[in-house]
């Protein structure tokens, strides 16, 4: 009886923590959603209301019709999808090479790759700006795609190598004996068995490229090529835009990745914890 009471008290305490944690996590989001559906005259009403009196979509209509937001959205989509494709290609091939072959210096090369994963994009903005300037790639999608791919490949190799290692070597060896080429064995045998790993790589790369800011800030100045984070930053900085338009724009920018994340969260969590947790 006593133990049960104690458990009940403990559970209530835990539920209080759950509630506070949920509130902590959700409050800023609720605040933005609430702001984005407030009509103009309600935005500076006092006291501020979390639930607007007369909700409206006018802010969304405004940012979609009256600002370059759709262009930013398209730019982000092109850059993030191309980067994801390129990373999947480069990283899965490399991870297969590292998983299935033993050669001199393999361990050292892997260590260097893991090390480069830790080189932050921000310390490379000056040389990358100069390189892309020299190659006449400033203000192009290609500059962003190539650099984002290079940034995301190391982690992806590491993640995929783990997946490939867990597939029995005898599977692709027997495909080779049956006359498959290495590439075909990789394509037909290994890749289909590694879909969870490939999905984790894809979602990570997509989100990272969708969210990247500082390199875009340095490499892209023409409005026609700006990605969402850069575009929204410029938009909030240049014009005296009110917070309800910014809130609507922010929501349009985050809804795709939040949706993607919620649908694929298991892959996401497994990728996130890989490398930090044993087992």
């Amino acid at each position, binding site marked *: 009886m006593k133990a049960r009471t104690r458990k009940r008290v403990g559970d209530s305490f835990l539920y209080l*923590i*759950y509630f506070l944690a949920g509130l*902590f996590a959700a409050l800023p989001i609720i605040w933005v959603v609430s702001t984005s559906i407030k009509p103009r005259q309600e935005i500076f009403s006092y006291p501020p209301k979390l639930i607007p009196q007369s909700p409206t979509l006018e802010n969304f209509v405004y940012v979609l019709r009256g600002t370059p937001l759709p262009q930013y959205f398209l730019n982000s989509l092109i850059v993030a999808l191309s980067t994801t494709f390129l990373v999947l290609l480069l990283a899965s091939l490399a991870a297969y090479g590292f998983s299935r072959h033993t050669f001199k210096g393999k361990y050292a090369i892997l260590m260097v790759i893991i090390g480069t994963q830790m080189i*932050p994009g921000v310390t490379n903005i000056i040389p990358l700006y100069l390189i892309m300037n020299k190659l006449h790639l400033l203000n192009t999608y290609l500059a962003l795609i190539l650099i984002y791919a290079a940034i995301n490949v190391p982690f992806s190799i590491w993640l995929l190598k783990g997946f490939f290692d867990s597939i029995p070597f005898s599977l692709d060896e027997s495909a080779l004996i049956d006359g498959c080429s290495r590439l075909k064995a990789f394509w037909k045998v290994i890749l289909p068995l590694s879909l969870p790993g490939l999905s984790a790589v894809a979602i990570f790369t997509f989100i990272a490229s969708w969210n990247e800011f*500082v390199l875009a800030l340095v490499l892209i100045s023409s409005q026609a090529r700006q990605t969402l984070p*850069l575009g*929204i930053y410029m938009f909030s900085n240049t014009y005296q835009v009110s917070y309800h338009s910014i809130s609507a724009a922010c929501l349009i920018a985050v809804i795709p990745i939040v949706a993607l994340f919620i649908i694929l969260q298991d892959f996401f969590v497994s990728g*996130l914890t890989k490398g*930090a947790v044993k087992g």
Partner: protein
Amino acid sequence: MFKKKKKIGHLPFILPAIIFILSLTLYPVLYAFYLSFTDASLLYPTKSFVGVRNYTDLLSSPIFFAIMQNTFIFVFSCVFLQFTLGLGLALALNQKLRGRVLVRVLLLISWVIPGIIIGLIFQWMFIGDRYGLINYCLISLGVKPVEWLSHPLSAMLSLIAANTWRGTAFSMIIQLAALQTIPDEQYEAANVDGASSLQKFYYITLPWLKPTILINIIMITLATFNTFDLVMSLTGGGPVRATEVISLYMYKEGFAFFKLGSASALAMIMFLVNIVFTLIYIRVLRQDQEVSLV
């Protein structure tokens, strides 16, 4: 014949990725290293070698030390808050209670939102007058509203709050995953021996989590140290450089004042910090996962 095929087999697979990493990650680091010893500028095309002058200029300027101090306060506070909150939440969410999946998803959402947008959201929450959410709450509690982003200390606090909101989920999910690897038998055995909850935490949970905790702290230290987007959009480094961290300083040296040499020296200092932490990280990882890497 099969053997020979296997021997040359790996190069075409790994070479493309290696070329990408070499040309767009490692070569730029070397290039920045070289630039840090020059007076390169965006304003004129020629540059000349100036030895370590960029470094000595930085180390003798009071601004640099103010920036380093800002960076240290920002990183230390965020890491402390993110880690303790993250571990606490992980312990709470490791209990098999209803609703924990919802809370976990809610917390993780903050982690996928671009920093630039988090900055804008918090700007709107912390805005100086009574319309901001935070000030409204203060007023309701009978406290005087604060011009959060206009004073050095409160601007730094806002920045720390925003970044803690952003990063806590990461520590939470990593610690949660580690907690789930602890075999139940350990706790069952402790129960048989009559151990208290605190003893179980101290003698089973903590030792088991130790490598993960270390890696967690290294990762969030680096992530916070390298933060640029959130600071840029929330405070822009202001008021009067009170929240300017090293990444922002570097960006401004390079692209607002066009001093590429000096900015590269700053990049190298940042890079050095990253290297030191990465070496510790790899060391911890090697002790932990020797087998899976080779």
